[in-house]
């Protein structure tokens, strides 16, 4: 599998995701945002961080970069695209994913391990997880408060486009287990063709027992072939 990580000025989880992809046997390339051609790839990752300092709106300026036009092109042709944290924000700004990520409801940056539940595994990203499986994954963001309109919310539910929801350790999905105020506790979503996944939690931080746990590895291994 060939993967490509897009690096924007201010991306700062680019090395972390590269380490994870290589550990999982992807052949990975890093692409600087000023380049105008993407290498042939099966998976494109937009990493976490603070592209352009998160100035204006997080993800807004990266969403207007040259390379993004290429990403949009191949995404529409069915290439797999994964946006993590800032990457999710960028994907919503480009319109590849609908909805927006507002400021956390407590107006503070939040870094901690949270529980999320796999809502639908019938897709290329999550097939190695079980439905309703609870994962413990690290979040680190200022704007992770997912919001969208009623129609889109309906579509997300009807077409099974919700990837993860925040929950507690017993799998309860409620206000107490919602770290940032996201609508319906949504932590990650797909586009309607399910070739694009955007998520706030950081699976690349969960591949090494010395650092945390290995709850993130199945996301990457699902994508291998």
């Amino acid at each position: 599998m060939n993967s490509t990580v897009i690096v924007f000025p201010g991306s700062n989880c680019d090395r972390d995701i590269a380490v994870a992809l290589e550990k999982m046997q992807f052949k990975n390339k890093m692409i600087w945002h000023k380049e105008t051609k993407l290498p042939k790839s099966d998976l494109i990752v937009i990493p976490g961080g603070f592209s352009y300092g998160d100035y204006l709106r997080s993800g807004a300026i990266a969403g207007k970069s040259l390379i993004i036009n290429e990403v949009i092109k191949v995404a529409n042709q069915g290439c797999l695209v994964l946006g993590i944290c800032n990457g999710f924000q960028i994907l919503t700004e480009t319109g590849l994913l609908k909805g927006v990520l507002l400021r956390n409801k407590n107006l503070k940056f939040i870094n901690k391990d949270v529980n999320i539940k796999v809502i639908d595994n019938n897709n290329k990203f999550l097939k190695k997880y079980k439905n309703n499986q609870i994962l413990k994954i690290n979040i680190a963001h200022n704007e992770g408060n997912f919001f969208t309109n009623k129609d889109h919310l309906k579509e997300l539910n009807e077409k099974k486009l919700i990837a993860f929801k925040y929950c507690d350790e017993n799998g309860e999905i409620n206000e107490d287990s919602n770290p940032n105020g996201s609508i319906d506790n949504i932590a990650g979503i797909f586009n309607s063709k399910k070739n694009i996944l955007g998520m706030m939690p950081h699976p690349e931080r969960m591949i090494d027992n010395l650092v945390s746990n290995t709850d993130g590895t199945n996301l990457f291994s699902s994508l291998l072939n």
Partner: protein
Amino acid sequence: MEINEKLVKKHGLSLEEYSSIKRLLGRDPNFLELGIFSAMWNEHCSYKSSRKHLKILPTKGKQVIQGPGENAGVIDIGDNDAIIFKIESHNHPSYIEPYQGAATGVGGILRDVFTMGARPIALLNSIHFGSPKHFKTKSLLNGVVSGIGGYGNCIGIPTVAGETKFNSTYNENILVNAMAVGHAKKDKIFYSKAKGINKSVVYVGSKTGRDGIHGASMASAEFDENSEDKKPTVQVGDPFTEKLLMEACLELMKDNSVISIQDMGAAGLTSSSVEMASKGELGIELNLDKVPCREDNMSPYEMMLSESQERMLIILEDGKENHARKIFEKWDIDFVIIGKTTKDNNLLLRYKNEIVGKIPIEALASKAPIYDRKWTKKKLPKKKINSKKLNKLNLKDAMIKILSSPNHSNKSWITDQYDQMVMCDTIQKSGSNAAIIRVHGKEKAIAVSVDSSANYCKAHPLTGGKQIVCENWRNLISVGSKPLAITNCLNFGNPENPEIMGEFAECLIGIKESCEFLNYPVVSGNVSFYNGTNNKNIWPTPVIGGVGLIDKLTKPMNHLFKKDNSTIIIVGKTFGHLEQSVFLEEIYSDLDGQPPEINLNNEKNNGEIVLDIIKNNLVYAVHDISQGGLLVALAEMCIGSKLGANIRKPKKLGNIFEYFFGEDQSRYILEVDKKNLTKVEKLLENNNIFYEDIGYTQREKLEIEKEMTVDIKDLCEINNQWYKNY
């Protein structure tokens, strides 16, 4: 502009100092030159009050590659790996504008570390606020914490440890100290010493604005006709630009283009150029028309004294200019050749085809004033405590009061606002005795911790100075690392007051004694004087930042109990020293008397054996006993582990408060599996280490025989309350 007495004073220079300037120049300085002298000769840059005392610190050792004097200290951790680190204060700016003050503090210390060729791998901070009841404290705390997080999170370096304290001594003068730790290859370290004549001097980074122009001086309208819209402004940090600047510098440092490099910190362009020239014993010529400016009509004075952030000065090898320029252009960072090195040992400034300033480098550096200020010794306070009054109290109530106090509450309200995991090498986050960061791609790690004990230092500076080094060393030992070296941030009051100067001198003697004895040298540091207002000085607050090495990383060691029914041992003797303790402070608001004594022999022996025991995999958990004493330490071991402990009543000591809250030094609590107990005991006995078997771990409850029982769940609740409600 005419230079008069008033203007000299506005620049923070005494009339004697002004006479020296005239003598060194052989003439009167012009306005620009006066500004430059004032920047270079102020306390912050010249260390004029502290230098004499700093000299006594031990700075050498097998592990030291670079001691104080460079942008940061460098130590050797084997396999061609080096760790580069330093701590710095940003106290006054943070009090004025907490968010930006703290943020730019983090930005500044990061530059000190990546200037030397290191990729920063961890951030730490020591923050001290006034009483929680003081009307400013809450917004200062909020602003400082989000400023520290705002900068570190954005640039993508984990903030992994620190300390947060409240005390009314900081009501009008908070402390914000930031420490950065970086990793470099031992054969790829960059220094600020210039070399070679006629080499290009390059300005990279943000444009120069009128930020923070040199405190005291510019505020008045008197010496500038347009002063109304030229007021000095607070520095605003731009972590995004810093991230690009850092990546560009690290990329440039991959080959051999850089002769020397220096960040622009306090006194910006002035101090960076003078420092490079002075270390290289040569001169430097700058063409100020070339300086990238953010505002129109900036004067040479403003350009030379601006403290705009995110800027660096680089001296390049011949012919490398275009190669370097390309790298900075890739990262969208300004790159301008603004001057060259010269052989005539002057700082020469040109502007609009004129020479606007010419000062011998040595006049600004080696000939800057040094003071041997008067200082007085502090007597060891008399013992005062009357232990009879204690017996009316209930042990459990006292413990609860301490654990629910702002100083001893769980700090996750703070640490959740910091990205602790970015870079994916954080093996242990904050919350334990020290954080552990893996060296990327290797099986070894470093441990880091910052510590201070202002009340001990206030009561007896010499003992306090000794103690903080030891406490820091103990924290590193407790996570299984070998302590290698420290950096220190010396926050003190007004040095012109002999008592304050005495606190400074004696704390340093204490620091020196411990560092020497423990082979724990000082490799970098920072002095911050004049902390206080209107003759009210803060308590002496030296902060120690230590780095230790874990050469073979297996599982991180921390302070949380792991198993039911293992034996709990205290290493080190308990005498029951209560004076200056958290117990007396929280329960009786009593802070009289002397701090606990340090026996360096015991400190070293106990620490080395505990490290040995950890390395031999004989313990589940280790916690040093520090502020709060035995019971607070035990409670901390329970909180977060969901396990409790059953502790016997002490046999000998008469007073249980002395036993459970005494702050005798050099002690550790160990959780030992029963099957390893004889091995551990043997190791301790063979080395003549005093230890006590005090009980065992159990489920759910912390129990003291015949005295108290408390549910661990409740304990957690108690410990989490304060920040939640603040």
